[in-house]
């Protein structure tokens, strides 16, 4: 990562294809009920039927709306899918593929435990990759830690397993290469932030401390637009929306998302998959 504080560059020098001002990735964590099940484990609680059912709103209702709005605006997206979701909701994950979107790794059971060994994570990755490959026919090239949990050994493990990028960190608004002992690794990081995560605003449950009130679309999309506008002006940044079909998939929110996609398209955004951005970024660093 060529980070140097010189008062002007808020990131490395990078330009986006076709005079685009920003690289936008509209990503979905398609966790279904396993988001809530794994959270309950990490919070030391359990969930009942209502949370289980809330999670299933994703595959049963939200996903189709997500796919439709992406198709309407003709944009390709990345779906991070836990292995077990690919097994349990095969038809839904197939339809994501058929629409031409990227499928990436997001744990097997959406495991979000911090203290696991490299062997345990290897096993999780193997199981997830097998489940995803049985639908996509290709090895995933991207990884996002469930609940943003990754480990010190994760980047190198991803490299060993042929991954191109990771999207878990929250340390800046530009894409960079991971480093080890001062040397670049050929693994791209595409950082995101809680500000652009629908979970921050729409996750509702009585099963753990997260119970809270709802936010209006005006507030949420207002925050996202303010971030998008500012980052676009800076010119060398990425913007990742981190969405969950069980939350963003409600009718009113999907329609607001559609408007926002249209806004970004007409304001200098290159909207594509994480894989495509990562390939572009890696090419730029290598050449």
């Amino acid at each position: 990562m060529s980070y140097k504080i010189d008062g002007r560059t808020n990131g490395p020098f990078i330009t986006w294809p076709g005079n685009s001002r920003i690289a936008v990735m509209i990503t979905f964590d398609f966790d279904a009920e396993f988001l809530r099940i794994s959270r309950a484990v990490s919070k030391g609680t359990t969930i009942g039927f209502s949370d289980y059912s809330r999670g299933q709103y994703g595959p049963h209702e939200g996903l189709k709306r997500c796919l439709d709005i992406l198709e309407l605006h003709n944009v390709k997206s990345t779906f991070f899918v836990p292995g077990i979701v690919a097994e349990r909701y095969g038809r839904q994950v197939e339809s994501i593929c058929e629409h031409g979107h990227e499928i990436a790794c997001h744990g097997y059971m959406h495991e979000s435990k911090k203290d696991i060994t490299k062997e345990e994570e290897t096993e999780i990755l193997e199981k997830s990759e097998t489940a995803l490959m049985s639908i996509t026919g290709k090895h995933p090239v991207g990884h996002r830690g469930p609940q943003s949990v990754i480990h010190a050994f994760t980047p190198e493990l991803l490299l060993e397993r042929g991954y191109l990028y990771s999207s878990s960190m929250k340390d800046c608004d530009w894409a960079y290469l991971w480093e080890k002992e001062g040397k670049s690794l050929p693994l791209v990081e595409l950082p995101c932030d809680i500000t652009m995560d629908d979970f921050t605003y729409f996750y509702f449950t009585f099963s753990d401390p997260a119970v809270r009130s709802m936010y209006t679309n005006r507030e949420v999309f207002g925050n996202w637009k303010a971030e998008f506008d500012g980052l676009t002006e800076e010119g060398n940044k990425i913007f990742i929306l981190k969405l969950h079909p069980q939350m963003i998939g409600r009718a009113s929110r999907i329609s607001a998302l559609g408007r926002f996609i249209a806004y970004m398209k007409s304001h200098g955004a290159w909207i594509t998959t994480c894989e495509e951005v990562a390939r572009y970024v890696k090419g730029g660093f290598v050449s």
Partner: protein
Amino acid sequence: MIWPNKKRIAVMMAFDLDAETMWTTHGEGSRGHITDLSRGAYGPKQGVPRILDMLDTHGVRATFFIPGVIAERYPDVVREIGRRGHEIGFHGYLHEEFPDTTYEEEDATMSRCEKIIYDLTGQKIVGHRGPGGVIHDYSLKLLLEHGYIYSSNWRDSDGPFIHKIDGKEIPLVELPKDSIFDDTAYDFYTDSAPERYELKSPGEMFEIWKDEFDSLAVENRMINFVLHPQFVGRVSRVNMLSDLIGYMLSNGAWIDTNRDVAQYVLDHKTF
């Protein structure tokens, strides 16, 4: 308070550059949590460069309270803060928030941090903001011994005021702060224990701060901000801060460092 040049109010843009120490001292929930720590890194890496450029746009000087360990970890960032004319104040070495720290320990921590900042920037630290709002019954005495001229820890007034020891005034100004001017009351969202599920929009923050500014300006008081580059450093919030600074400058604000405001108060004491 009568402020210089007929200004209506003194405003200090003050940033606590806690970076990763925000998370290492926040509780067990973030232990070993790489991406939580990366949220801390956003401060020096992404937030500060953006903030420095914005402050330059307005020609405004600010105060950065920086834990020693963060200065050691991000020396280029700290040098740049100094080079751009901003003040650096004491904020612990590890962002220590222990109520039972002894006088000797605190004395040593202060000396250690003063040396780190002096070596990087040539600045002599003259102000103190306790990490996590923690201070000790010996703190005033210690600050005097270290030649400090201000503290920014009290929350009981809209200040400024002169501290006293045993009923006698000492040459140490208090520049109070409050959560209403602390960005973490609005934008410190975390899903790691202890969880904080709140995220206000930049517009809401602007509205609350502008209302408070307008009313305090009528009383000729002061505002001391508590801002964290890892949170407020997102571009949408820096743009909001820029709007706010523009508004305050246009409406009678004297915006300067804690050090310069403290020195003015010591020199004039025209309450």
